[in-house]
């Protein structure tokens, strides 16, 4: 896939700060270290709307370790732990 957003570096969503706005570049379930298998994690992320090209915005963070995060994915809000959000590469 071509990256239309060359000026920004790609980071995992799991490292994004509150207020971050970006676009999903790809999913990389192997990088997340989640308890789920790669296939299961990727399936669940897709089912919640985390697909390539979706616009994401980090709206809120939890108190302990700024975790979990509340992410606006297009027009819905999903709560997710940073550990799983590491699988979502954004720019």
């Amino acid at each position, binding site marked *: 896939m071509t990256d239309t957003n060359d000026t920004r570096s790609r980071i995992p969503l799991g490292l994004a700060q509150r207020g971050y706005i970006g676009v999903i570049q790809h999913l990389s379930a192997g990088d997340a270290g*989640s308890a789920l298998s790669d296939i299961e994690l990727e*399936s669940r992320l*897709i*089912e*919640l709307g985390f697909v390539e090209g979706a616009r994401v915005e980090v709206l809120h963070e939890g108190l302990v370790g700024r975790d979990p995060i509340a992410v606006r994915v297009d027009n*819905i*809000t*999903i*709560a997710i732990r940073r550990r799983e959000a590491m699988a979502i590469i954004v720019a």
Partner: protein
Amino acid sequence: MEAPLLHLALVGTPNSGKTSLFNALTGSRQKVANYPGVTVERKEGFFVTPLGRQVSVVDLPGTYSLRGRSPDEEITRDFVLGKASGETVPDLVLCVADSTNLRLTIRLLLELKRTGRPMILVLNMFDIASRRGITVDVERLAKELGVPVVTSIAVRKSGTADLLALTDEISAKLAAEPRENSWRALSVAELRATQREADRIIADCVSLPARPDTWTARIDAVVLHPVGGLIVLAAILFVMFQAVFAWAQPLMDLLNNGFDALGEFVHATLPAGLLQSFLQNGVISGVGSVIVFLPQIIIIFLFILLLEDFGYMARAAFLMDRIMGGAGLHGRAFIPLLSSFACAIPGIMATRVIDNKRDRLTTILIAPLMTCSARIPVYTLIISAFIPARDVWGFINLQGLVMFGLYAAGITSALLVSFLIKFFMLRDYAPAPFMLELPDYKMPRLKSIAIGVYTRAKMFLHRAGTTIFSMMVLIWFLASFPQPPAGATEPAIDFSLAAIIGKALEPLLAPVGFNWQIAVALIPGMAAREVAVAALGTVYAIEGGKEAAEQIGQVLATKWSLATAMSMLAWYIFAPQCASTLAVIRRETGSWTWMAVTFFYMLVLAYAASLLTYNVAVALGAG
């Protein structure tokens, strides 16, 4: 000619407004039961279409796909595929979508289409979407999807008229032609392709203004604030418990007086004898002492349903996730544990929202330690009899303080047990993911809430009328037979089976300061905790006559030492005194082992806590 019953099934993602549509269609004509073999709630309702067709509709558990990751989602999949045992294949599937959020539902619908079942897409909450400036080309959407599409507003009276008309139209021409089921579990690539397809269709048929729900954003700015959010959560919980204890009181007094008056009436009308004793001591005081809790049950469910409908429950899970994670619990465990303050049974059933097996098991094991409403009568009775109602430090009521201490002891021990389970039993455990949709806030709809509360109250009364009633009859029987021999001077109960059983158990319970009357009361207390109060009442009533039954608190104050009372309180924090809870654990975990584990760990904790409390109290001179 009468047309056969038409079977509909409601399928949709969580938060699609499926349940409010279900309530709007069926009103109170609902049957709540369980699917055979699993404790997934099966909600079926009935209605009649404008053309007079009788319809049965089943509200299936919410799901994002047909993969079946949890028992709930498996039910939805099997039901739609016609594989659920003992269920009719639905004639027509209603796929319910939140009109403000079509992406996930359209993808689910594309997957559902492969099952070959006749289907309608219901664009629910269409009014909210219109208000936000979302426009949907319904005709084009129907053409692109190859499925009839209808809009609905479940919360408005005539909001389902189009849906009903379309149901009539389609059901009239439902052909008996065989349907091809080409569904199989999707691979990741197929899943992605379906989502792309869904996004393409939405781009063609729906215009979305870049105007998110500002109310939700504004409320979340406070409610999801890392610190402010926790303060709001604490305040909500405080109001909730205040309501359960304070608001319910007048109603409970009213019910109490009602049952007392009824008992008096029976006492005065019937000649003294077995029948009078049975009705007054067995039936009325026994069942009455349980029904008195109806106001509290209603209030706690009212709060839980309101918060859920409003959209707050998911936020509470978000706020508590990491905090509970410290004790080895999942954020989603918050809702089941909160429900367990009303009753561990709905709490344990609510653990179905946790899809990781181990997280779910931990939550199930500790849920009975939350102070359920059935413990309240036991606590209140003992506290009011033994703890003086004076203020400490000028403003805190001592009785209230003890009550708070009992709640705190329950919560603390639950967290401790969870921590120990995580540490010793599930060592190789990696935290399960927490992924949850935070729905836009919605004004809860009164009728839908009322139906929900009504269903719960009915279940509670049903239990009071069956399990608890039969237990009260049993305890009355045990306490009344055999009858004392003629000329006996001791109280009649000393000759009864209850006394024999109680005295046999006494040596076991003597070290914790329990007398045989308590031992007798604990046995029916297994049916339901609160029954112990009634059983104590029955035992002392038959022992001491009518006055004793009315003044059970005062009787206890003269018959028990303070140490015994404290020991009884400690016992009730932990004791596995509820057969229904154990039965639910057996069903939910599918294993006798986990039920036994729960029973024994709680029993050991209860005995140890009582032993410690009793001996410390005696040593301090309260014996």
